[in-house]
């Protein structure tokens, strides 16, 4: 199985004509990797895509969060990150009055939300006042490593779409690595298995085709 070029922290990155971007630091006008990961070259840029890294909040990311704590006007939300996020009662579609937050979201509930504000010290606020943003009522939540999320989604969403079609489930992928899967229990199990394979083999080439084959075979079995 072919893999991309792997680098370790401190390894020199040959940028060539491309501009260095994420995951590296400069020293004496040379670039070195900050992560254990793979080199990713696009048209203009070189990035180091880490195999693992904590999720850091970014504005407009659509994420899945878990309610951790309830205050008089705000919920504290776990967003699969070292940093907690906050959800203010006015950023919800409901008419919440202060001190009455538990009626709407309890500790342990999950929400699909957008990060509306994030600052340089990684404080963030999320909002439910957007299209499609809501409380997640049924289904199961799994978590994958945040850097694997783009691979789970695939180019233009094709990876997640084939998983959805072949397993007949509803899936929402939060950009923070939490994934919501809903449907028949057996289908949900199959979808989760498929996502785990993508997470494991994210750094290999030609994964989408292999996954389609795998899913076809799985469907053919019953």
């Amino acid at each position, binding site marked *: 199985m072919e893999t991309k070029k792997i680098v370790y*922290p401190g390894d020199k990155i040959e940028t060539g004509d491309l501009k260095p971007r994420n995951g590296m630091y400069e020293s004496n006008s040379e670039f070195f990797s900050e992560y254990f990961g793979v080199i990713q070259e696009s048209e203009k840029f070189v990035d180091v895509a880490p195999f693992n890294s*904590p999720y850091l909040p970014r504005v407009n990311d659509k994420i899945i969060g878990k309610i951790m704590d309830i205050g008089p006007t705000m919920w504290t939300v776990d967003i699969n990150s070292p940093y907690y996020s906050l959800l203010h009662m006015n950023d919800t579609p409901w008419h919440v009055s202060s001190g009455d937050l538990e009626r709407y979201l309890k500790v342990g509930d999950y929400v699909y939300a957008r990060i509306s504000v994030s600052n340089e010290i990684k404080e963030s606020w999320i909002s439910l006042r957007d299209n499609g943003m809501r409380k997640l009522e049924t289904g199961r939540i799994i978590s994958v490593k945040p850097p694997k999320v783009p691979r789970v989604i695939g180019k233009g969403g094709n990876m997640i779409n084939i998983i959805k079609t072949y397993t007949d489930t509803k899936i929402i992928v939060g950009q923070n690595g939490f994934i919501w899967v809903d449907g028949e229990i057996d289908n949900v199990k199959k979808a989760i298995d498929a996502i785990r394979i993508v997470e494991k083999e994210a750094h290999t080439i030609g994964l989408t085709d292999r996954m389609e084959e795998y899913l076809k075979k799985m469907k053919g079995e019953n």
Partner: protein
Amino acid sequence: MEGNIKLIRDDGLRLDGRANNEMRPIKIQTGVVDRADGSAFIEWGANKIIVAVYVREAYPKHAQNIDRAIVKARYNMSGYSVEERKRPGPDRRTMEISKVVSEALSSAIVLEKLPRAEVDVFIQVLEADAGTRIASLTASSVAVADAGVPMRDLVVGCTAGKADGKIVLDLSKDEDNFGQADIPMAILPRTGKVVLLQLDGDVTEEEFNQATSMMMEAMPRISEIQRNALMDKYSLEDGE
């Protein structure tokens, strides 16, 4: 006691049959603790150490550093990890090791990338056989890289010392107990910057230089083991 104990055999090898500049076998494995962000298990000779790394918002809030992360390594020895039972809990020695390991790791981690955060490094020594601070640091550095915490380099460490009047690499338990000096050192291999250097005992300047150059020679070999440990987790998956 000193002088009575023979640490170098007549054939010039050490008691365990190693040459002067030979290390004990090292084995590192990553991803051994599921719920940790990163983890590593190291077997360095008879040392067995497990390390788990967690990244989170520093708590309590007043302990947070507004513009960078803090690194908290906690070295802990199991009661029966040593010949004579060690009374559990922190003591002067373990607190010292926690401190030097934290500081060595801090110089490798890109702290500014994780403001207000805390990188918790839990080091549990299951079996100790000389050189645990360096083994802990070597494993911690792998565990931190496994956690995906941005690092400038993988910290790598090694020890040397003086036994029976001779400079030897990677002291064994007997050489540590009955030798004349013990020098642990850790560096950032890319730049060669020293991030940990301690000396316990007596050596001349010449012997000290000899010890450090011996260690510098051994560092790339340990570095290679660290890298292979990180890689193993992914190549296994390739083999499917």
